[in-house]
Every structure is written in structure tokens, then in C-alpha cells.
């Protein structure tokens, strides 16, 4: 019996390690709380649109979000929002419309996870970027967003000038 309990506990631990949830140690909150916090603080919003069990989300968490500098950069300067791509939980868009977290994917025409969406503090979308990203990618995106460059040029134009 004791052995069964140990095995069950071990399987639970294993299950916990394969989840593709927000990266550990970051202050991610749900969409409504993040929008509220952004309006209050004036910080831009960073939406991590992830999927339960998503391998590329897990990879991004381990390879990129594990970076201590990136963690400080994004935790200090963004309202961090995590959205579950297949969830029926509800959120309220800046327009006042209530939709499910999964429906947000349809509205964004998301085709892959992870999908990273940058928004103004008022919840207006600046741009979205799908798939695995490096620490440098996120540092570039941060300069583009917090530097206000999105008001004058596209992300590609900004990145082209930079290189």
C-alpha cells in the first residue's frame, strides 16, 4: 500500500512537470486582472497565449523565460497576462465584450502556441508574435514597445533598422 502511495505521488510529480503553464516566478495574472493592473500602472500588457500541454510553450519557458534578466525586465515593466488557448474561462475585452479564453484565439486568428501579444495599457493590440522566441527576441520586442517605436514603424521596419 505504501509503495502504491509512493508511486502515485511520483506520477503526480511527473504530471506536474509536463504542464505548459506560465513560466515559474513571473507574476502572470488572468486577462481581466492584467488589464486592470495595466490601466492603473500605465504599463503595457504582455499576453502569453499558451496551451495546456504545449511542447513549444514548455520549451520557451525552459530556454528563454528561465533567464533572470528577462524575468526582471518583463516582471518590472509589463502587466503579465496568461491566457489558456482552450479554456472556457471568461474574460472581458477592452470593448466590454465577454468571451472565453479560447475565443480570444479565434479573434486573434491564432494558429500556433505560444503566441505573444503586446498591448497598450488600454488593451489595444500593438502586435503579436507566434512560436518559440529567444531572450534577444523578447529584449528587441521590449525596446520596440516601451520605446514607443510601434507608433511610427512596423516591427519588421524596426528590426531591420536595428540590424
Amino acid at each position, binding site marked *: 500500500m505504501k509503495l502504491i502511495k509512493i508511486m502515485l505521488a511520483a506520477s503526480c510529480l511527473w504530471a506536474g512537470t509536463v504542464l*505548459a503553464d506560465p513560466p515559474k516566478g513571473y507574476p502572470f495574472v488572468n486577462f481581466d486582472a492584467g488589464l486592470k493592473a495595466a490601466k492603473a500602472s500605465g504599463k503595457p500588457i504582455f499576453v502569453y497565449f499558451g*496551451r*495546456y*500541454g*504545449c511542447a513549444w510553450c514548455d520549451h520557451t519557458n525552459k530556454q528563454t523565460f528561465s533567464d533572470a534578466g528577462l524575468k526582471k525586465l518583463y516582471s518590472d515593466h509589463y502587466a503579465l497576462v496568461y491566457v489558456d*488557448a482552450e479554456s*472556457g474561462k471568461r474574460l472581458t475585452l477592452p*470593448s466590454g465584450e465577454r468571451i472565453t479564453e479560447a475565443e480570444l484565439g479565434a479573434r486573434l*486568428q491564432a494558429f500556433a502556441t505560444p503566441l505573444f501579444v503586446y498591448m497598450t495599457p488600454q488593451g489595444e493590440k500593438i502586435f503579436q508574435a507566434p512560436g518559440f522566441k529567444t531572450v534577444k527576441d523578447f529584449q528587441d520586442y521590449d525596446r520596440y514597445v516601451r520605446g514607443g517605436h510601434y507608433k511610427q514603424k512596423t516591427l519588421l521596419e524596426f528590426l531591420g533598422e536595428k540590424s
Partner: protein
Amino acid sequence: MRAAALLLAVLAWPAHAAWTWDEALTVNSVQGAAIFPHIESANRQGVGVSGDTVGVVWEDNRDGSPQCYLATKPAAAAAFQPEVKLSTGECYEPVVVALDAGRFVAAWEEAGKVHAQVLPGGQRLQLSNTEAAQVTLALRGDALYAAWAEQAGRFRRIVVARLALTGDTLSVTSAQPVEAAMPADEQGWPALAVAGDGSVTVAWEDRRHRHTVPMTSHSRDGKSFAPPARLTDHKSGRVDGLGAGTGAMRPTLTAWGEQGIAAVWLDKRDFLSGYDVFAALDTGTRRFGKNIRVQDNFGDNMAQWHALVVGDASGKLVALWDDARDGTPDVWLSEWAGEAFGDDLAVPAAAGPGWQSDPVATLDAAGALHVVWLDRDEAAGTRIRYARAARK
């Protein structure tokens, strides 16, 4: 030889007979830039046809909070009658099935519980005693079932109830979870169908495998359910030690033919092109066969959304969804042609410039297809649109 030629002609019938569409109508009488109608529901059951009456249910926030509505129209009428409100508290994800003679059963989530009511004239019945959502219904003959996702400890699980109807009064004959054990992870979005043999099939989203997998079970008596089985035959898992598997969500079911059940869902096994529409058929064995991709190659590299399937006793089977292959979201359908789904066809009034999405549909007793969708316009407000199609 003549018999073989006749058989081939019958099998090829869907490829030759086109759907002819009536003029599309607007269902909701109140629209505005800050009014947001939704027709999402478990099993996408937003429209029913009872005799010669069409009924459509939805949720919108015109009163300042989400409320559920039903609008009806005689089949031959050129407009829907003003809608009636079904709810008093915050209401979400209503569904409707058709009884006879212009009567319907609607069900919805309100204030954290699920409810059902015969319309017009019936009294509301609270189906769940604990927190519940995502209710759906299925009816065949006098067999009426409801299913919903109900809180059980940390997670929700699927409960199926047999309902009795006496006049306009509903009651719960029996209600039990599909599995007696407490859920190990989240379950939701149930779909139900009653086959010609009276058995009930249920499908739902399930996260016990640490990613979202549509599961299915069936019951001969509506009380005792078979152990759950995967609806998807694509068993994904960890990739190089990462993640848990690809996602698949929002299963829908329909009774099909004399004994069959058909399932359609959104499936991300090709994870670089968004969700695809997949189907599986149970021809009466109470086991689903191999998975079949529904949309044609023109839908490749494109995310499909809001998929559902509708069928009838004659064997007609139609899958619908929306995707933006032509630049903006349009509503598409594909019909089962015997060995595969046929070419994708746009629903004419739900295609072209603008955002047309979120189809719900039903087939009536004469085989006509009734489709309802959202036509989104941020300035003027979203219209709920309806069109009927018949074979010519």
C-alpha cells in the same frame, strides 16, 4: 448493371445536388456597437426546427449584463418575431432542441447553475445543485437527455441526466456523472446524441492526459456508462521531453442515419496551421472509427474555428465551421459523401467581406439545412443571421 449504376448515382448525389439558399434574415432585433451577441454553446446547439417553427437562442448584454434570448419564426415568415428573454441573472451558452408543434426545450447556465425549460409556456427547472456550466441537450423520440460540466472537487466533470417531459413540465429522471471517480483534471464542453437504438453517446473535452483530448462514452440505458475512450486516434505525447501532447477541443455530436453517431471537433495535430476540423463516425457499433479530416486542401495552413456537425435519420451529414482562407472569416460547410467529406462550400450569405463566423445549424424533418451565424460589425453592432437551404 442497372442496379450498380443506380447505386453509384445515389452515392454521388451530394456531389450533383447543390444547396439552394433562401434569402438570409436577421434574428436579433436589438443591435449596437456595445451589444455583443454570442451563439457559442456546448455542442453548438443554437437553432432548432419544431414543425414549421424555427427557434434560435443566444446570449447578449443589451440589458447591461449577459442574458439569454429565444426568437422564433414560422418557417415561411420573412422575419423573426421579437425575442423573449429566458433568464433573469447572468446567463451564458444557451442551447435549444425542438419538440413538436412549435415547442422547444432550451437550457442554459444562469448564476452558476444550469437550467432547462419547455418553451413556450413551461416552468424553468434547475438541473444542477452545485456549480455547473456548458449544458447541452439531445432528443430522439421521447428520450430527452441533458449533460453539463459540474464542479466536483478541484475540477469539473461531466454529468448526464435523463429528463422526463409531461405536458410542458420537465423533471429529472436520473442524473449521474459519466465516471464515478472524482476527476483528475478538468472536463468540459459535453456533447450528446441519442442513436436509433435509444443509446446515448456523450463526448467532452478532457485534460486527464495533461493536454486537451476529446473523450467519449456511451450508455444503453442512460445510467450506466462505458469506460471513456479517446475520440482522437492520434496519440500525441511529449516531444523531446517537452509538453504533454497536441490539443483538440470542442467536440460536437449528432445522430446520423438509423443507428449512427457522428463526431466533429477542432484538432491541432498539425500544430503549425491552427486547428483543423476532424470527424469520426460510429456506424452503430458504439465505437468511433478512424479520424477523418473534414476540410479540403484549400483550408490548409489556415486555422479553422467553431466546428460542428449535424445529421439526420436519412443519412445526411454536414459539418460547418469558419475560417479566413479568403482573407476574412467566412462560414464553410462540407457534406459527407460516403467515403470522405466533399469539397468545402461557402455559405453564400455568410461569405465575403466582413467577419462572418460562429455557425450553428440543424437539419429539419424534410432535410433542409438551417444555419445561424454571427455577422460582426464593430460600428453598427453584430447581427445574428439565419438562412435556410434545401436541395434542388
